[in-house]
């Protein structure tokens, strides 16, 4: 890697089911103001900006960065937008990372958002499908995601209960998260008894629909100290893909996530992820995905995710806490989620998570992704 890059400021909105007091652009402004204040900077100190959102159809504004630029006072600056479905925020952060690592900027602001209350979420996602070939049968990616989970259940002998444990864990963790808006204690039984939406996915396996934005300031090692004495250094970061309709596409492991994590672990010197990471933040658009990530990220051997969650190891007080923030179950402004996960992990290794600090956390793993579960990435942050 060329230069060291750290996260030196973070900010997110208080996410909500529906914000009728701010426009999409105003929502972005809130997160940017908070991140700049957190980094002790103003917009003049920022060299370049990356904006990330989910698909245009979510909110009816094509290339929305061209409107949002005014709200964040970034006129005249280098501004570009990345989009990658659910992984948009993470993909944007990765582009920002390379702007700093490649010497194009010293400080880059990455802001990601979606205001999902404004559109028709599942219909918009269904247009991911080929208009000639299958779109008319799509139910967002919920139908697909449920099918993918069922395929794992049958082969691995996993039950619905394993995913229900993930849902209950994350929902209960979200209660303490000041930025989450879905905060209701649930039991595994509640999840199992909730209404099937796309069986085996049930209502409580599904995150809320949210309006929210999140921003981070990335800085080179040269200038990071102006903002904080303890940046969250990015030790490795990658985002890989697979063609979705491959003859041998594995429904068991996420191959792009396995490839990305191998690459990132090599860069970050991770040889035993279960033992080395203090905390993990993952983007689980449905509870079942978190199980897949455990295996694809090497937190447990293939096929043993159900055992891992049942063991309690991924609870806040376990040896490998996953989503102490509550993950997507507390709030799910889709395009912003990748950045929210980075913020949660960054504040952990910076030792200043407001409400759910993992004691002495020094090394954190972040996962994010989108598409038909075929865009997948991860990052390692350290104190």
């Amino acid at each position, binding site marked *: 890697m*060329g230069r060291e890059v750290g996260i030196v400021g973070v900010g997110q909105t208080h996410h909500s089911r529906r914000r009728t007091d701010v426009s999409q652009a105003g929502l972005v402004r809130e997160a940017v103001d908070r991140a700049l204040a957190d980094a002790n900077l103003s917009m003049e100190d920022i060299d370049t900006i990356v904006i990330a959102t989910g698909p245009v159809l979510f909110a009816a504004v094509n290339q929305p960065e061209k409107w949002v630029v*005014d709200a964040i006072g970034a006129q005249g600056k280098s501004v570009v937008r990345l989009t990658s479905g659910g992984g948009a925020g993470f993909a944007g952060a990765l582009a920002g990372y390379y702007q700093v690592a*490649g010497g194009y900027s010293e400080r880059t602001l990455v802001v990601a958002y979606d205001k999902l209350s404004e559109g028709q979420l599942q219909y918009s996602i269904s247009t991911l499908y080929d208009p000639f070939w299958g779109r008319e049968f799509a139910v967002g990616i919920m139908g697909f995601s449920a099918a993918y989970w069922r395929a794992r259940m049958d082969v691995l002998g996993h039950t619905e209960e394993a995913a229900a444990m993930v849902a209950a864990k994350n929902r209960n963790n979200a209660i303490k998260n000041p930025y989450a808006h879905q905060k209701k204690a649930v039991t595994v039984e509640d999840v199992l008894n909730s209404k099937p939406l796309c069986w085996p996915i049930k209502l409580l396996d599904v995150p809320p629909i949210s309006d929210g934005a999140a921003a981070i300031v990335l800085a080179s090692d040269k200038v990071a100290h102006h903002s904080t004495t303890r940046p969250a250094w990015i030790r490795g970061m990658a985002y890989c893909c697979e063609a979705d309709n491959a003859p041998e596409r594995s429904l068991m492991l996420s191959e792009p996530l396995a490839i990305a994590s191998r690459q990132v672990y090599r860069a970050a010197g991770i040889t035993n992820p279960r033992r080395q990471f203090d905390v993990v933040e993952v983007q689980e658009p449905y509870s079942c995905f978190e199980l897949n990530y455990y295996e694809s990220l090497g937190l447990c051997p293939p096929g043993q995710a159900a055992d891992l969650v049942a063991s309690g190891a991924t609870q806040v007080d376990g040896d490998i806490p996953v989503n102490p923030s509550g993950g997507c179950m507390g709030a799910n402004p889709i395009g912003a989620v990748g950045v929210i996960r980075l913020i949660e992990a960054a504040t952990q290794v910076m030792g200043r998570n407001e409400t759910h600090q993992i004691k002495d956390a020094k090394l954190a793993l972040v996962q994010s992704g989108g598409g038909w579960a075929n865009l997948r990435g991860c990052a390692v942050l350290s104190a």
Partner: protein
Amino acid sequence: MGLSQVAVLASAQTELRPAWRDAQHIDLISSVVTNVFKGTGLTLDDVDFVIDSGSDVLDGRSISNCGFLGALGAHHKEEARVEEDGLWGALYGVNKIRSGASQIGLIVAYSKPSESDIDLYWASMVEPFYQRPVGFGQKAALGIQAQRYLAAHGIKDDALAAIVAKRWADAAANSKASIGEVPDSAAVLAGAEAAWPLTELMISRPLDGAVAVLIGSGDVARRTGRPPVFITGMGTSMETHALAERTENKLDSVANAARMALGKAGWDSAAAADVIETSGSSVIGELLTFEGLGLAAEGKGADVASSDKINRSGGALPADPIMATGLVRLAEAAKQLSAPVKAGAAAPSKAIVHGTGGVAMQTNCVFTLEV
């Protein structure tokens, strides 16, 4: 800290046509991804990452990159979608290689505007409360920009028409654009009104097509056996969404982007370039670009428009494969720098490449190339 040098290794384009009726997006994409390796000694296996530019709104599908990953050659690689002209995709790719994380990247941009309603593409780009309901969009913005420029500088319509006619003739001779009959000045003036005072041919013509550009580190470039074309500077700048609040008769963002790129490259002026490829959304947008680059004084863009250094490929007026136009400029400029010259002629050594995006060129990107 030594950051890697980055070079353009090769490029490939499909023909740019008003409508590729007998090909789908994936056909255009996979064609350029296949062809870009010809003569390089490299294969897709050597590529570390793919960055693509396309538009969900033009493609008629959300996260459209997701459905095109196979055609893009991205399977099991790192991939990113920059929903802006492909020149911004190249900017990302250059940073990635300069960081030392990767050696070889494939930048792909494409669109098929023939499959959608281009006016809806632009209308959906303006904010939905004030501008969209009154019918403000790309054509209106380009029209107002032109009205003001012509009024301020007393330029005559026939001078504009001559520039347009030259671009079409040059595109017919030197580009991959499907041109058919080359219009003369009279035909440009006689065309239907697009946005008064601009006729149809005075605004860029949307075409279907795809382009792929292979970039690599300096080490890789020196091994491919051609004279490397190095990307030595890059800059981009976005202006306010509100046309009325932008500086009248200027593209400040072109000037900002050029300042960034020239500063990185260590050039005093864009006039040092032997090759200049720009992406004007209208003939006035072209003139404003020349002025923003510092090639001409304010209001004097037309004086340099006929220079044989500028837009030898015809530029964007006859051929605007939206989302790909700026990357096509990069491909064309790199070709001009690496093409053999006639005996006795001076070989060009420096180029300026320009890409644009947004309504009335709200955002602009400038690269410097050197051999």
